[in-house]
């Protein structure tokens, strides 16, 4: 690469150019079905990044597999389109490797709460500093319509032709119980609300989950835009206290004529995984440090073996 380069410090000295939402357009346009809820999530994240003044190269967007996991390709930042269910594990490694990056994890309900459920639990309890946006459409879309971990009881899908008999997971209460320090729900039909929540999530230090109702217009006819539009109610309008985890869980359990969106729970002062690791205290990202160990260090190690 024969290009002029600047050191990191020189780059940082340059004033940031204010960016617009369209500056976060990826190399290709989304291949989602027309009307897919994920479009609203993409535009909200682009808007939030512009509002926060994040430079694309400072962002790492990581996904698993599924319709919504194609997200990094449509978003202008560093990105990783990893394995089904594994985005949070990859993201934890990446965040530890370079904790100076702003890390987004984007994916769906099957990817995150199904095949990736174990990583969801543990990433939450570790309080890894990242923003996890789940485009929850309560269905498996890319495999053409099977039941998902958030599908309602009795929902008929190709794999449950007589109706699902399994209770769905509640991502909000699950995240709170697992130790997540920022837990929110949004509706992709309300981009302004979602944008605000993303901005809050990025500014929050620690694991932030935003479960977004993102309707699948092709395979989920039960939970479509009108279903949510009639039901969603913002917690902010109710005077909910996000510091009250019990109230948060009570609100999160309500699923009927009213379904709450907004910030359910936030614990502001919890140390992140990186905060608790002295290895990260000094010297910047470990990915950028000099490799190898000093003679003093190796002498000490070998002396202990003698």
């Amino acid at each position: 690469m024969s290009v002029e380069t600047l050191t990191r410090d020189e780059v940082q000295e340059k004033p940031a150019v204010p960016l617009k939402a369209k500056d976060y357009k990826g190399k290709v346009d989304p291949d989602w079905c027309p009307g897919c809820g994920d479009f609203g999530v993409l535009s909200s994240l682009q808007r939030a990044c512009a509002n926060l003044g994040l430079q694309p190269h400072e962002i790492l967007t990581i996904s698993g597999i599924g319709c919504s996991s194609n997200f990094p390709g449509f978003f202008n930042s560093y990105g990783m389109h990893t394995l089904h269910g594994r985005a949070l594990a990859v993201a934890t490694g990446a965040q530890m490797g370079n904790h100076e990056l702003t890390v987004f994890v984007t994916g769906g309900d099957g990817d995150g709460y199904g095949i990736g459920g174990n990583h969801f639990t543990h990433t939450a309890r570790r309080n890894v500093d990242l923003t996890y946006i789940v485009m929850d459409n309560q269905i498996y879309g890319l495999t053409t319509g099977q039941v998902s971990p958030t599908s309602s009881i009795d929902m008929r899908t190709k794999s449950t032709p007589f109706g699902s008999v399994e209770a769905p997971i509640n991502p909000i209460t699950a995240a709170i119980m697992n130790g997540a320090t920022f837990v929110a729900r949004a509706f992709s039909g309300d981009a302004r609300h979602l944008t605000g929540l993303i901005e809050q999530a990025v500014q929050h230090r620690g694991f932030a989950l935003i479960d977004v109702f993102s309707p699948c217009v092709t395979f989920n006819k039960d939970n479509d835009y009108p279903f949510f539009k009639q039901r969603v109610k913002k917690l902010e309008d109710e005077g909910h206290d996000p510091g009250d985890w019990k109230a948060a869980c009570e609100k999160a359990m309500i699923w009927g004529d009213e379904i709450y969106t907004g910030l359910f729970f936030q614990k502001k002062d919890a140390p992140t995984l990186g905060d608790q690791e002295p290895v990260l205290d000094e010297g910047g990202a470990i990915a950028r440090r000099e490799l190898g160990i000093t003679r003093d260090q190796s002498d000490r190690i070998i002396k202990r073996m003698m």
Partner: protein
Amino acid sequence: MSSDRFDLAIAIGGAAGQGIATPGNVLARIFIRRGLHLNAYNAYQSIIRGGHIFLTMRIGDQPVHNHGDKLDLLVCLNQDTMDRHLGLMGPGTRVIYNSDTITPGSPEDGVHLCPLPIGELTDNNRNKLVQNTVALGTILNLLDVDFQILEDILTMQFQRKGQDVVDENVGVARAGYDYAAAHFEPFSLTVPSGGKPLAVWNGNDAIAMGGAAAGVKFYCAYPMSPSTGVLHWMAKNARELGIMVRQVEDEIGVANMAIGAAHTGCRSMCATSGGGFALMTEAVGSAAMMEIPVVFIDVQRAGPSTGVPTKTEQGDLWQILGASQVDFERFIVAPTDALDAFNTMPELFNLVDHFQCPGIVISDLLISEGTFSVDPDAIDMQPHIDRGAVITESRTDVSDIPTGSQEANGHGLIGAPSNGYLRYENTESGISPRALPGVQGYAHVVATDEHDEDGVLVSDEFTNPHKRRKMVEKRARKFKGAAGHIDPPELSGAADAEVTLIGWGSTRGVISEAVEMLSEEGIAVNHLPVKWIVPLHAEAIADVFANAKRTVIVENNYSGQFHRYLRSETGLTADGHIRKYDGEPFMPHQIVEGVRELLAETTDIYVPYQEVIV
């Protein structure tokens, strides 16, 4: 080994919880400080309390490559050990035991029984571990080694617990020493001393240290025997060395987390055993597809499935060869001993960085949990580091921000060419410079889906057979000539030998001793130890086969996994096989007997009988 060498084997047997590790460590320190070489194998069970543990420590004035065939001294910490192993002891050997609790049975003529009245010697000390320390004193006296060194090491060992504990241990050790002087006939040998003091480690330490020396900054694992020692070493040294160490929820998470850290630019690795590696396999392929350098370590144990968690086997070769779907580029290497494993780590990291692909290390319980002496000067903790084509400097002449967001780009799609950086540029070598996240001017997406040079997916609605073919060939092209970056296997021994023994990985030490023993019998044998599995130096191996009179493959598994692999890659088949799959490693005499049987043509596949049952 020829009789003019100093060659002594001590075994300590007891139940888990009886504290065998401590006297083992103390003895190891005593011998290495005298400059003696050491190889110890601990046969144990997957049990925390109870069961049977049998530590065999062989000491020599020359490098010791395996735990050997015979025992000179047996320490029985319980009746079970006496009952199981007294029959192994021959004339001239010594058997130490607590005569308060253990009855000896009938030894072979010439075995010296050394009963210790532990209660009397320790003023009826109720600490059950005290007999171990008494035995240490006794061992030293039988070997005619001065007591002082034991006092020094016990003091070092127990210092943290206070002077009372030091005094108590030194006191009972002294009692054992003096009691032996008064009651037992010492060995008629002199333990050499004055050699250059050596260090002691096990294979997992060596692997971890090799990683640290190579510049590993991220290590993660899920505990699994016999790989857990790597995690323990890393965890213990993490903060001093600036290594991020994480214990993860499962091996799927481990492999993916290691990949995430590697993508940001860390040298990153993880270790597991066969079952855990099975969970990692999908991620191995993802590292290859995204072209992220990362190292996976599989410390093999007896299987399949949960198998025999505390026993050794070379049974994962085909799992590793088949790890992850379809064709992709990766290195697979089976180090032949602990020091080789140490040296392999920086070499492998340089290779995976250069070729931007995963690397897999195959170890096994024998190497990883064995204890070995090592010349401290042979441990090169500042090896050469080469990170390959990696972009770490930002640029501002090209923007990450899209310029022509509504113009058609190379994909015929509405979008933006952005910075124009091609992460997967279709270069002549197939190697494309890798920009690390955070570097301005190179923002891009890496994908496990098939992708074009710029990282854009070609797997979904844009499927394009020509692009797909181009990218498959680009990745494959990287590996053309990769074999030139690694050493071919080297034949040792006579060129016109009657038998050529071929082994891989951890069997090198035991085969080389069997070769010596056979040559003393007048059977000329040479030895080809194979270390690099992929890429395989097929021509070098074929040359050896072409010139061999009789080829015999030695491996620690049932089906001849290496033989089947060699045949699939080269069409070569061996004349005979020596295989073992009982959980225990080969002993030199078992290979010697195998060669004799194969030469007598009584069988094509010789499976030795394991005399030591633990």
